[in-house]
């Protein structure tokens, strides 16, 4: 019971802190679930995040796995509700008020002001996952050079070509299977 309350508290707070999307709360989610509550290890967190990228829909559904691991099916469902309901309620309320401020210079100011915060937080999310999945001090140099190459190649391709990212994720898996088995 105490664990369920803990799960709901952590993910409900993350929900309303997710300024600019799920990537923005990755550092704090990792910190809460790995360091504070020991629900998963850093490696498991990165693996679970990868599984989330493999599945369709919003890219943070993987929170369900953390809930399941901690408290079974009830944990999975509660975490999903805790993670989505607060921000959905908030956006519902804001979207009603938003139209009222159409054309207001202050609304533009809020939007312009939020942009660098959002991008700073997204970079933090990239860094939080990257430290485990791309450049991990616990892994060998050979392992790291391969994962760094995969990450950078995917970034470069996506910046230059219009291609379904899911294909590149699968390609990353294939390269990993081929090149990382023996490392």
């Amino acid at each position, binding site marked *: 019971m105490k664990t369920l309350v803990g799960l709901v508290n952590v993910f409900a707070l993350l929900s309303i802190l997710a300024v600019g999307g799920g990537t923005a709360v990755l550092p704090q989610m990792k910190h809460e679930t790995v360091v504070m509550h020991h629900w998963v290890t850093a490696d498991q967190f990165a693996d679970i995040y990868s599984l989330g990228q493999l599945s369709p829909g*919003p890219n943070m559904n993987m929170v369900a796995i953390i809930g399941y691991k901690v408290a079974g099916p009830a944990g999975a469902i509660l975490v999903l509700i805790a993670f989505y309901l607060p921000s959905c309620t908030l956006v519902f309320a*804001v*979207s009603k008020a938003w139209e009222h401020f159409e054309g207001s210079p202050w609304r533009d100011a809020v939007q312009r002001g939020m942009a660098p915060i959002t991008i700073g937080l997204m970079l933090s999310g990239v860094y939080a996952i990257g430290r485990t999945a791309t450049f991990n001090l616990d892994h060998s140099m050979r392992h790291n050079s391969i994962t760094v190459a995969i990450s950078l190649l995917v970034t470069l391709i996506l910046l230059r070509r219009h291609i*379904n990212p899911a294909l590149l994720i699968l390609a990353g898996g294939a390269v990993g299977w081929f090149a990382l088995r023996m490392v």
Partner: protein
Amino acid sequence: MVQAEESIAIPGRQTAPQVRVGLAELFSVFLYIGATSFGGGVIAYLREHLVERKGWLDEDHFLAALEIGETVPGLISTNVAVIVGSRLRGVRGALVAVSGVILPGAIAVFLLGLLYARFKGDPEVDATLAGIGAAAVGLIFAVTLQIGRRELKRWQDFLILVPVFALVGVIHISLVPVLVVFVPIAVQLNRPNQEELATYHARQAEYHAQLAQHHENVAAQHSAGDKA
């Protein structure tokens, strides 16, 4: 006779949607989007289905929804689902749209999680997952760079971006104090100038004058009708 249809252009008041969408259809379309949008680009799928295929809302309304979805906390895809769902069918529409877009992925990720628990430790599975993880980092990095290229227009933006990244990403300060401090500063740095505010207030005043005039006209027509 009262001319009820007489409409004045009200700035900022969006007209009610013309289409009447059933809850079941709403759910099935969002369910389809939730089940097919692999690779994280849910927004592109939402646009394709809602604007192009179904025509439930036009490009401008979609962009407006996206604008709110990006500014308010929460995932952009679920935020847009809430806005579009509620626009079409109120609270129930919002609930139906969000559950539709989340459910397939949640079930898929749940099954993947079970497989993961079963096969974790197998060197081939671990190697494949390591490759997928590295590719996933490449993906979110590319998305971040693309949004950055689009949104960062002034060098002052980096006065906010760099400390936010350092505090949250590197030193792991909790998001709450960081947002409490940086959101007001960022908005203040982008505050509208006097001219913009003056134009806006003038436009608002004009609109209210028009509205008052409109009410007067209606009232006049009413009393004229009573006398007749």
